[in-house]
């Protein structure tokens, strides 16, 4: 029986319900003097919310009535080993850190660390090349964006670049 349940479909139904019952009432403000329902700020998100629920139900039904139907959520992008999960968690850690560390260290130094972190995660077979690119690339991009494109690249609190 469980192989007939499309968790993906049910997930979308749940998400659609969340949009309709929680997200729209909490996060969409509609003035009281809206003359017609179709002009209200909530109208369009509500339509989309119902659309998501409908498609989720359709996905679930197709799975349920299909004898050996394939649920795309079963697709495997590779072996789900503990190491793979750890690497993925590490990459998410690098991303999160990058957002919070950039204002403190500056974009160039943070980018160098992020490059090194990702290279370590995938165990780069070319460590020397990775190290060189990790240093040169953020500096080169800083040069382009700061001096050619006129972008105020964050410098951080410690080392300021010209």
């Amino acid at each position: 029986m469980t192989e007939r349940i499309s968790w993906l479909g049910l997930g979308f139904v749940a998400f659609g319900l969340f949009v309709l019952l929680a997200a729209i009432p909490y996060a969409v403000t509609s003035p009281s003097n809206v003359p017609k329902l179709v002009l209200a700020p909530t109208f369009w998100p509500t339509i989309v919310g119902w659309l998501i629920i409908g498609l989720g139900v359709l996905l679930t039904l197709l799975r349920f009535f299909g004898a050996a139907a394939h649920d795309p959520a079963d697709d495997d992008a590779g072996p789900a080993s503990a190491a793979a999960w750890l690497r993925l968690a590490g990459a998410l850690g690098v991303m999160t850190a990058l957002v919070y560390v950039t204002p403190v260290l500056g974009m160039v130094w943070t980018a160098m660390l992020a490059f090194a972190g990702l290279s370590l995660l995938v165990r780069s077979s070319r460590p020397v090349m990775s190290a060189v690119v990790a240093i040169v690339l953020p500096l080169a991009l800083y040069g382009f964006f700061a001096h050619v494109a006129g972008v105020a690249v964050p410098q951080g609190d410690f080392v300021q670049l010209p």
Partner: protein
Amino acid sequence: MNPLDAIALALPLVLNVESFLALFTGIVVGVIAGAIPGMSATMAVALALPFTFALQPITGILLLLGVYKGGIFGGSIPAILIKTPGTPASSATVLDGYPMAENGQAGKALGMALYASCTADLMSNMALILFAGWLASFALSFGPPEFFTLILFSLTIIAGVSGKNLVLGLISAALGLLLATVGLDLVYGTNRFNLNDPNLMGGLNFIAVLIGLFAIPEILAYVWRPEETRGNIRALGAQHVTFGEYRKCLPTILRGGVIGVVLGSIPGIGAAPAAFLSYSEARRNSKNKDNFGKGEIEGVAASEAGNNGVCGATLIPLLALGVPGDVITAIIIGAFMIHGLQPGPMMFIANVDIIYALFLGLIVSSIMLLGVGSVAIRFFRYIAEIPRPVLLPTVFILCVYGVYAVNNNVFDIGVMFATGLLGYFMLRASIPPAPFLIAFILGPLLEDNFRQAMLMSGGSGEILFRSPITWVFWGLTAITIATLIRRGLKRGKAAEPGLDALE
């Protein structure tokens, strides 16, 4: 303004070092990115976009168009040499290109791919020049109800060609529509999902969403499974395409170019179906039918003409109607907007010099592609040997700088990562990202035109059926939906029931 006056205005915009350099750089970057398996033309255009902010609008857009054209051709190089299409558009090229390479005729296959690409590209550009202006003048009479029905029709077509599974494509589009509603309401100025955060009041940054959706999931997928996937690179061989062979394949190339132009001008079809249709038509009409799939040079010519014939034609709906023809032109529409230009019929009046400068630049790009492509073929070995453990962190850093540069805001980097996570989930769940992005772009246009129509009519839905144009688009939408359902049911009966029925 007559076309000659427009050309006179456009010439100074194109005939300068910056424009030529931008086109050349774009084509080089595109060919290299297209030739690297795992990189795609889409990703290359997305990554190149932030580098155009500092350029003049026409220079920046020409650079992106160069990346687009170069990327589509570049995908054929690994398709022929290592049996790995660099872009989905080159999948049909593998069928005869790789067998030719195995027979020691890689040089001949690549040469034909290049000549067919450039010829079809030129045809596509001419079609753009001929038809875009005509379509735009027709679209000048469109009001909000007509645009609403046109965009609705475009969305149904896009959903119909959104990959293996229609329902998942529709879900992807629905998620894109939902995220597009984030930000201040345009009519009442009230909050919509922006949680009173000033960073979200203008909506989610388009570039951050785009790069998050197309580049970050590839990086996460590699982190999940860091394996080198490099094929055995075939030698070019001594043989080259002769003029006689090109002349013999010319009818096939012209047919493929026409197929590319027709399919490319319909929003949502894209280059890969055009390449396969062109290939199957070439096979049907060829005297060497039996040799197709075993190393037939006509097969390479057909598939490359089909996929490159799309490039200029996808710009017809973009420039004339403001509707992107495929996912890459959806990115290019973002470039127009960033440079303060709104593609659509009004652009043919307000910015006719830029339109004609683009036309001229596109013709120049076809000639440049010929030169750059010939060199790229010889240097492919070096391009293919860029190690992925270095390439993907490089892409990651390019994403970070590029997204930051849009608004000088670290918050946008966070949006990119969040969208990247969503994109990775979609990748794992086989949900195609292209409908998401196109719906994200078309969603606000759809809603704005709908609400404007409702304001005009005082909330009456009758206005959406006010003219023959709206009836035509409603009819086309109904036909598209009926065709999709019918095709799904037919496949369902022929194959396994269930989800596959709507594939």
